[in-house]
């Protein structure tokens, strides 16, 4: 790879989900191995380890086994992040386990992903866990979903089997909000259609998984329409050179900002114009999500962390009562009418749980209306009231301004992940 081409690469974040024996670790191992992202010392270590355990082939799954507890139990217990690159893109994999008790990890991994890979065992087709993974991908607003029908080698690379599973998945996905779906028949173990095109499935004319990962259009994954700038930190150098400098530092959560733009600051409602967009390397002509920049305004307005700079004709919602889809992440159940601390964009506040409207059976998508107890790994539609107005957009419109977390005020643990409806 020559040095300059590397400076043009894009970043794609994806998460992987699958049931216990779907071969997820093998698939990741295969992606790393076939894209030559594995170092000799890593390969030797797993080769040695496979031999010691008496395994016939080098077990690529061992590459992704993280902590000792996992190695001992042979399962993955948390989100693990992996990295590899091809000349086109750098990839960040959020590798999440598929067991039901770890829905919370899947939600965590999915929250920052552009793309979700869902593994389906060709011998079993669509099972409960497949539905769950698809639902979570849709709930978390992952823009692209790729179903990998794995273990095709064990069904004689049959086109019929693939088509049947594909039909089932399409029917199920039509009930969900997934915008971009792909299906790839693969064998992670043998390497068919992962990086290299399979010689065993000439009936398949689509892309390999790697081709999809390298070429899928991700430029529209961020919102570049609604201008949202949550103020993260106020920069006041108080030096002689920058005596009166007041810069508002933050990461653009949506839209495109330019010097001269008429803007409004919320919640105060005061208006001004963008004077400059500053970085250490110089001022910018424009800045867009997800860039981290510093804005200065023409007028001296009192602005602090938690405020949001927007356009006057395109404002976020400003409400204290919101409905959210809530995924509970903690062993301690959600307390009905309970109070929790919340974090939303750069804002801290508190909220009270007003009502659990229904829970979702994540395997069937049915609503559960008679059981309002929300425990770990459960997902519910909940109404909350916050101590101060939230400046938000619907989660489906903007993942940054539409998401919030709930924190237990006693333990300080993050106990809930909420997406505003």
């Amino acid at each position: 790879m020559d040095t300059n081409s590397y400076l043009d690469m894009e970043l794609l974040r994806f998460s992987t989900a699958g049931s216990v024996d779907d071969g997820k670790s093998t698939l990741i191992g295969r992606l790393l191995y076939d894209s030559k992202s594995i170092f000799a010392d890593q390969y030797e270590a797993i080769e040695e380890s496979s031999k010691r355990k008496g395994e016939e082939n080098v077990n690529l799954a061992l590459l992704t086994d993280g902590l000792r507890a996992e190695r001992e139990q042979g399962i993955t217990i948390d989100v693990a992040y992996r990295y590899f690159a091809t000349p086109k893109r750098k990839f960040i994999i959020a590798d999440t386990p598929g067991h039901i008790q770890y829905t919370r990890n899947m939600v965590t991994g999915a929250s920052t992903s552009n793309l979700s890979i869902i593994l389906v065992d060709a011998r079993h087709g669509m099972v409960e866990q497949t539905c769950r993974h698809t639902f979570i991908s849709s709930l978390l607003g992952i823009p692209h979903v790729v179903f990998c029908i794995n273990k095709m080698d064990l069904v004689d690379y049959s086109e019929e089997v693939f088509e049947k599973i594909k039909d089932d998945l399409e029917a199920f996905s039509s009930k969900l909000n997934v915008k971009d779906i792909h299906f790839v028949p693969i064998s992670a173990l043998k390497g068919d259609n992962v990086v290299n095109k399979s010689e065993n499935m000439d009936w398949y004319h689509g892309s390999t998984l790697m081709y999809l990962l390298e070429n899928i259009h991700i430029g529209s994954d961020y919102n570049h329409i609604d201008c949202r700038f949550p103020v993260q930190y106020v920069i006041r150098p108080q030096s002689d050179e920058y005596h009166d400098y007041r810069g508002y530092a933050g990461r653009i959560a949506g839209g495109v900002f330019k010097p001269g733009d008429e803007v409004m600051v919320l919640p105060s409602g005061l208006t001004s114009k963008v004077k400059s967009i500053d970085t250490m390397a110089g001022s910018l002509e424009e800045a867009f999500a997800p860039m981290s920049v510093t804005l200065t305004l023409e007028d001296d307005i009192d602005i602090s962390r938690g405020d949001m700079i927007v356009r006057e004709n395109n404002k976020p919602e400003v409400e204290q009562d919101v409905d959210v889809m809530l995924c509970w992440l903690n062993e301690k159940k959600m307390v009905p009418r309970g109070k929790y601390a919340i974090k939303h964009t750069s804002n801290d506040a508190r909220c009270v749980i007003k009502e659990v409207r229904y829970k979702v059976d994540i395997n069937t998508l049915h609503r559960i209306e008679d059981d309002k107890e929300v425990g770990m790994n459960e997902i519910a539609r909940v109404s909350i009231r916050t101590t101060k107005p939230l400046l938000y957009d619907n989660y489906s419109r903007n993942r940054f301004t539409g998401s919030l977390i709930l924190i237990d005020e006693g333990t300080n643990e993050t106990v809930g992940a909420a997406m505003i409806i």
Partner: protein
Amino acid sequence: MQSYNLTHLQELEAEAIYVLREVAAQFERPALLFSGGKDSIVVAHMARKAFWPARIPFPLVHVDTGHNFPETIAFRDSFIEKLGATLVVGSVQQSIDEGKVVEEKGYNASRNALQTVTLLDTIEEHKFDCAIGGARRDEEKARAKERFFSHRDDFGQWDPKNQRPELWNIFNGKKHVGEHFRVFPISNWTEMDVWQYILQEKIEIPSIYLAHERDVFIRDGVIMSTTDFIQQRDTEPTVSMKVRFRTIGDATCTGAVESDADTIEKIIEEVAAARTTERGTRSDDKRSEAAMEDRKKQGYF
């Protein structure tokens, strides 16, 4: 039509700067752990960018094992002066003198493990409630599960089974008195990303990262620099080789690689073709399969 795409380095930088600003906003007394190695240099560089034109609103902390390559300390002092930041030094020698730790003896003696005590003492002495580090998830498998905001109990311990879930770009730095956080802004970077960023930003680095002639000896297949701090066996003769270092840690456990890469561009080519991970030259990781996990639980970087 204008396309609003960032390159991967721009996106990684935007993420790191966002994390650094969250630290300044959420903690009262943060500090940036600075080893003089390339990763902490990159973090310090981005801290400068994150708060520009103001100064970095927290000090840089160097946990000094006393077993440094001479080039490292000279570089550290000039780098921090140019940065306009303040420096706090935690001394492992002082921890030894005060009897808080006992120095390892013998041929493989290293002060690497002793750093943990000095680090925790320094954090306590200065009442730091957050220590920013340059660790990356791709370095080692225990680090692959580390959070950006990593909670430590009042003994400085890491509990891998009880980590807070981290969603979207919302970071929960809430804590009780006595607890602190470790924050890793370049969690998502690889060794290659770091070198590319150094090239792109024209960041100065210590000369020992570049290939140079050096007196070395071979131990257990690893090329070690001759220093006053390591006892060489009779079977380990000193030879002169053209080498460079891929990581800079304590001189007693950081190995060199043979290399002709005397520019950043050449290093990048070398990293692209590399057959071993950079921590492959670190003997501290080779002590057991879970060496890093064990040290992290006790409060290591």
